[in-house]
């Protein structure tokens, strides 16, 4: 392969990876924006989304088949279900802890993550579940570069979801209220914004986006398991930090940057793909050390 082939090939890989990271990173950043909580359970919602997407697809496959239309319906059902799970988690676990010391709420988030992981672990016995679809291997050739239809649909769907979110946040009353709450929760409350509802909507949307990514990743890679949310949770957090935590465009940008960095990182001589994960953690630590506010974030004082 020529250098150009490698570059364009990794560009496509990076975009696919980056779309997953961006979708998950959006939930991290939105939830962080409104309640300043690092939701450790977010990666696990992606995992639960993958499983619920798989179950929904099994349920609807006999009617609509398990090609993209079926997957979209399954994804939609999974998004609704995981969105509701996110709202319940917030009400049950995080809401009572909002006034508690930060250490307590972080540990609570960790506990929620472990409960989700171990629930799925005990239901599946820790085995990989095959995510069977009828997706073909077709695609188009651009010169020597092959792009599969699946990759195109996946990147396009992520793009549509992100544009929809952007319009929701910038153009609607809810979105404006959400931005207000993330700037100053108490002031928003005084101005008549129903803060608990806004928090619930934020958890719903953030969790639903993770579920969309989980379903698509399951269909794309063909298997799901209980621990699949762990690494992507860490990487999506990295993406959110690169973009500037709390910033929605930042999360999209950070996701794409991390996806591309990782794709091209595997091409660096002597590093190789087994170091891929180490590479993204190293990026996380470097960004936190050199520019903790990220590319589009604002500097912020720690909550007291």
């Amino acid at each position: 392969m020529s250098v150009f082939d490698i570059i364009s090939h990794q560009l496509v890989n990076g975009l696919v990876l980056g779309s997953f990271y961006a979708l998950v990173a959006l939930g991290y950043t939105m939830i962080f924006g409104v309640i300043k909580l690092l939701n450790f359970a977010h990666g696990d919602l992606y995992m639960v989304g993958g499983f619920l997407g798989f179950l929904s697809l099994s349920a609807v496959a006999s009617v609509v088949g398990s090609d993209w239309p079926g997957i979209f319906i399954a994804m939609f059902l999974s998004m609704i279900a995981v969105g509701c799970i996110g709202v319940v988690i917030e009400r049950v676990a995080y809401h009572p802890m909002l006034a508690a010391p930060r250490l307590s709420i972080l540990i609570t988030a960790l506990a929620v993550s472990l409960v989700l992981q171990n629930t799925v672990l005990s239901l599946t016995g820790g085995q990989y579940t095959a995510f069977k679809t009828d997706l073909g291997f077709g695609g188009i050739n651009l010169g020597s570069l092959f792009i599969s239809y699946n990759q195109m649909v996946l990147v396009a769907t992520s793009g549509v979801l992100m544009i929809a979110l952007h319009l929701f946040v910038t153009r609607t009353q809810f979105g404006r209220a959400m931005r207000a709450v993330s700037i100053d929760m108490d002031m928003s409350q005084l101005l008549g914004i129903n803060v608990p509802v806004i928090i619930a909507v934020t958890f719903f949307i953030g969790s639903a986006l993770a579920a969309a990514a989980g379903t698509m990743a399951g269909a794309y890679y063909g298997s799901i398991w209980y621990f699949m949310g762990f690494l992507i949770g860490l990487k999506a957090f990295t993406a959110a930090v690169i973009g500037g935590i709390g910033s929605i465009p930042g999360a999209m940008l950070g996701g794409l940057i991390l996806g591309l960095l990782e794709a091209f990182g595997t091409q660096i001589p002597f590093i190789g793909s087994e170091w891929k994960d180490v590479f993204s953690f190293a990026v996380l630590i470097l960004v936190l050390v050199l520019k903790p506010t990220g590319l589009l974030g604002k500097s912020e004082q720690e909550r007291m």
Partner: protein
Amino acid sequence: MTPRDTASDRLRDRIAARFESPALRWGGIGLILVLMAVLPAALGQYATVIMTNALLYVVLALGLNVVVGFAGLLDLGYAAFFAVGAYTIGILTLDFGVNFWLALPVAVLAAAIAGVIIGGPTLRLRSDYLAIVTLGFGEIVRFSARNLAITGKASGLSGIGQPWLFGWHIATPTDFYFVFCALAILAVVVSLRLENSRLGRAWLYVRHDEDVAEAMGINRVAVKLAAYVTGAIFAAIGGAFFAANLGAISPESFSFTQSVLILMAVILGGMGKIPGVILGAFIVILGPELLRNLGELRLMVFAVMLLLIMLFRPSGIWPKRGVRS
């Protein structure tokens, strides 16, 4: 959380008050020491091996307690320091033929340096960033152990020799049980001394209010770094003897689950309270032995317990007296 003065709290205070008298306290400590000494003879080899593991967890949990309980920092990659200790011993004794007792200080030093490298830049940041950076660091260490030739890749290191101590060859499970008894006692004594030291009071201060602590002249970052490095040293010593005891180590001994189990030991019993942390370590190790038939639900039970404790009893099963949530 609102403070609650429940009947169980009052009962606990009354019982605790009985133990205030020095005679009873020393009697209690003497009794525990005697029980520890006769345990291998009384309960047989299987129980001795389990107890050795529980005592290792006491050392690790007390070390993590310095970071989480004393200084109030969440460390999700604590197993990394445990790994640094174990692998340093493995590499030095196997590849370089260094004596265990000479390798031990190197292992401690290596863990302390790792603590400074990872803590130094990140302790200035928001506390939840530290949590995720430590998580990332834990994974970096495990991935590196799995990918590097010197750490034996995925199969790890085996054939690590058992040390000699003044003509005593520490070889049988019972020998190692007594070594871990000594380490656990040492860890308790060091924890108690640290808690009541100038540094311990600085940690308390920083944990309760960082900004006021800084205004009172406490160097926030230095004090946190001290906690972080102290925790790393506890883990390295535990890891060194863990490697010598098993003779073989592999990357999977130092997974995220390991870090989480140690953290659970700290939180279940009661963060910052030394007897609580010891109790937590025993619950985490002995619990699954008692609930054998639970199988894979083991971690699930701990996870639900952790969640319930955080929601309803944030200061743990056996919290510090007078400090309620």
